[in-house]
Every structure is written in C-alpha cells, then in structure tokens.
C-alpha cells in the first residue's frame, strides 16, 4: 500500500487530497501510467509531466525514482513559497 498525495491544482483535478493504493508499479513513472488508465481525471492531472513535481517519502524526487519500500508519493505543481 502506498499513500498518494495531491496538492494545489493536481488535487483539484483529481478531486481528492490523497488515497491509499495497491500497485505493482516499480517506479513513479509506472505509477503515473497506471493511474492514467484508471480515469480521465488522472489523465487531466498528469497530461503534462513537465508541469509536475514529485516527492517520494517527503523528499523531492524524479519520475524514475523506484517505489520499493516507499510509503508516500506526492504529486504537485512547482512550489510557490516565500
């Protein structure tokens, strides 16, 4: 089970702040591909990966990051703090 979190407009497009998923995906990219087949909401959210950032277990990561042992993956647009 991986906890998947969504923030900002990614959260709005998907319609949930987070969900617990069973997945066979071995990388973040595979997880995204799997989600996109599920529902048009995911297709809309993940249409342009260059507009997205990902965090794995609360650390910024790349889309090719492995999911082995990972508990939490988060998707969000570029951050706008400060």
């Amino acid at each position, binding site marked *: 089970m991986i906890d998947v*979190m969504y*923030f*900002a*407009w990614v*959260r709005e497009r998907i319609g949930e702040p987070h969900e617990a998923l069973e997945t066979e995906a071995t990388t973040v990219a595979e997880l995204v591909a799997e989600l996109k087949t599920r529902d048009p909401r995911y297709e809309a959210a993940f249409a342009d990966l260059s507009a997205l950032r990902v*965090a794995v277990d*609360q*650390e*910024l990561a790349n889309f090719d990051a492995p999911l082995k042992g990972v508990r939490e993956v*988060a998707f*969000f*647009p*570029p*951050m*706008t*703090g*400060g």
Partner: protein
Amino acid sequence: MDIRVQSDPFQPGEALDTFCDGPTDVGAVVSFTGIVRDTGGLTRMEIEHYPGMTERAISEIARRATERWALSRCLVIHRYGSLVPGDRIMMVATASRHRAAAFEAAQYLMDYLKSRAPFWKKEFGPDGAEWVAATDEDEDALNRW
C-alpha cells in the same frame, strides 16, 4: 534553528526582537518579511502546504545555509491558510558576526523557500481564483548559489 509553520498570524517585530537577544557574538541581524501584496483586486490568498514535508524541507534548507555561512542563529516562520492583502505571509532572520554572511544567508533561504518548500498560493479576485505560477526568474535565482 527555529522553524515555524503555522496558520496563526505572527508579529515580525516581536520575532525580530527575540531573535536579536541572545549571545553577544552576533554583530549583524538580517530579516526578510513577506507581505501579501494587493495586485489589482486581490481579495484573499489561500496558501496550501504539505504537512510533514514542509518542516523537513525548510529544516534542510536552513541546515545548508548554516553550514555554508557562519550563522549563529536562523529563524523561518511561514504561514498557511487564508490571508488578505497586508497580511505578513512569512519571515526569515539570520544572525552572524558580519553583515555579508547574514545578508547572503537570508537571500539563500528566501530563494530556496520560494521554489523548494512545498507551499502553493491561490489568489482570489473579482475574476475568480487562480493558482500562482512559479516563475523562471525564481528558478534561475537558485543558480547563483
């Protein structure tokens, strides 16, 4: 290192005075205060963040600043939730023996908080709501460090 992520308002002046107190090896204190700017009809702003990761990310940025410059103390306060024009969003303060280190470390903290701390701003105005987009300028600012 004092990191506070909170929805409650804060007083920059009170935070600055407390920060200036302490061991007298400090000669220079620099602070930055971010204020919600009224950009033509902004009625309010919602700041969303990623609880858990936010504190980690800010602590890591502050740790790197403390390593790179000789900082005696370092403070970051960042709000989330609903804010209106004039509200203080966030504050950074750095203390060092000399002014150059305090200034540079504060600029470093701000540049990284802008683009690497998990906050997202949504602006509400007369024409509806819009997520604030990250700018190339903010991303480029990281290249100088």
